């Protein structure tokens, strides 16, 4: 979120956002006019809040193109990029209308003649990632869900990472099995505690569902233009990420830390 906030603050335009699950950050980039296209498997905030009204507004009016891939197909696009190969064969999406959306071609297995989907590699210009800890060389460790971050870091031309904590070289060497992104992939590293808030960071803080409920309630009441007011308050007005976190307050952050522990360490 710290990195998305910075993209917004720099008033970027004409971007393509690629990520499997697109949530509030996608809505922010749509409403700010930063993205022309979103490449994703799914976009909304979460089941209790229904279909994203902001997404519907921008996609149905043709302002933003939503290019849909299946979860696995998009994951394999990043993996093909990570492997440095132009495509990967897959057994998914075959026979569905998703094949035509992204122009996925089929190929015949040269050994058996079976039909396979040839999922094209995706090489992002920039990867924006948040990790649990990194050392000064950029070696990154992630706890809990690895998502697709290691593949995305390998596939991208430039990698920018925010981290909850910067640890010593010795600390990395004590748990090298936890390192999922080697330092030689990383172009920039920034220390940003709570850097994904109000989204979660596994084991450290739970997503702030109350905040999402407030955000969606404002959109339900005022329509998609409510996002402009939200961005003013949370992205443009607070000069630093610490100022941004102050809008939530220490008590709220502490509560989310406690909830994360209940679900992981103490579960």
């Amino acid at each position, binding site marked *: 979120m710290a990195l998305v906030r910075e993209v917004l603050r720099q008033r970027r335009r004409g971007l393509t956002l690629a990520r*499997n*699950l697109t949530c509030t950050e996608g809505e922010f980039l749509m409403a700010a006019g930063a993205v022309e296209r979103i490449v*994703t*498997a*799914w*976009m*909304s905030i*979460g*089941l*209790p809040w229904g*279909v*994203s009204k902001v*997404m*519907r507004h921008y*996609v*149905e009016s*043709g302002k933003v*193109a*939503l290019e*849909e*891939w*299946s*979860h*696995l*197909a998009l*994951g*394999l696009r*990043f*993996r093909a990029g990570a492997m440095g190969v132009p495509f990967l064969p*897959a*057994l*998914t*999406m*075959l*026979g*569905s*209308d*998703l094949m035509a*959306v992204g122009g996925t071609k*089929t190929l015949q297995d040269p050994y058996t003649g*079976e*039909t*396979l*989907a040839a999922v094209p590699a995706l090489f992002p210009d920039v990867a924006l990632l948040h990790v649990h800890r990194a050392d000064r060389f950029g070696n990154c460790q992630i706890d*809990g*869900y*690895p*998502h*697709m971050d*290691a*593949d995305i870091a390998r596939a991208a031309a430039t990698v920018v990472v925010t981290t909850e904590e910067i640890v010593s070289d010795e600390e990395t060497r004590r748990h090298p099995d936890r390192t999922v992104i080697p330092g030689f992939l990383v172009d920039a590293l920034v220390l940003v505690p709570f850097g994904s808030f109000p989204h*979660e960071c*596994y*084991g450290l803080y*739970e*997503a702030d*569902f109350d905040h999402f409920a407030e955000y969606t309630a404002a959109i339900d009441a005022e329509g998609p233009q409510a996002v402009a007011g939200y961005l003013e308050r949370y992205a443009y007005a607070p000069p630093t990420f610490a100022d941004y976190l102050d809008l939530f307050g220490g008590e709220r952050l502490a509560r989310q830390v406690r909830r994360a522990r209940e*679900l*992981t360490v103490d*579960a």
Partner: protein
Amino acid sequence: MSAPNASELLAVMASRQLRDDTTVFAGVGVPLLAAALAKQRHAPRLTLVIEGGIIGPEIAPGRLPISTNEMRAGRRAQMLPGITDAFLFAQRGFVDVGFMGGAQIDQYGNINTTAIGDYWKPTVRLPGTGGANDIASLCREVIIVTAHEKRRFVPRVAFVTSPAWLAGDGARRAAGLLFGGVSRVVTTLGLLGFDPETKRMRIEATHPGVSVDDIQANTGFELGRAPTIETTEPPSADELEMLRALDPERRFLG
């Protein structure tokens, strides 16, 4: 114990479809709730797989996940392989059952969760496939869990997000999908299946108090009839008690 509402009936009927010692790819919402109920009640060795990249979680009562990739979904998991690799277990053939909902379903079991109208100029844009396409493509068997409404059961879906039998008659295999396909559709009115030859949807059972005509009247195409049509057992008191304890906030049970 009060009578079940539609969501409770659906969750209980769905949970009975799951067998012990199997793996199930469960979508968030009623399918996951039904899987959690099955695991608690009659299938203790049921392994849940969730598309956020989670294997073997134990969902806590009152802490039901709202998305597939958050800590609630991965509580006490046995493995967190990442999203791509979780689906690759299915592609390799290790996931017995895909268990999911659907916005719009047709007579061959194909599902649309993408858009109504032209894809690039939609009248209504839905959230999209997520992992539903992969689950429908790659699990050994797929069970759909959905409210039974005429507007959801259409002759042909506007967009095939998740393939079942496509146009029937071998179309799935011809497209390159090696196994799987929708075997059951659990609804608020009864249990539907597919004719083994034509792969068209048919009525297999009705829930208590529901007639075959009621099901047909709430479906937008002509349903076949299984040779024998059963009546399901109503949800028992202990099924309802366990289910309600799982979702005390009524997030998914309404």
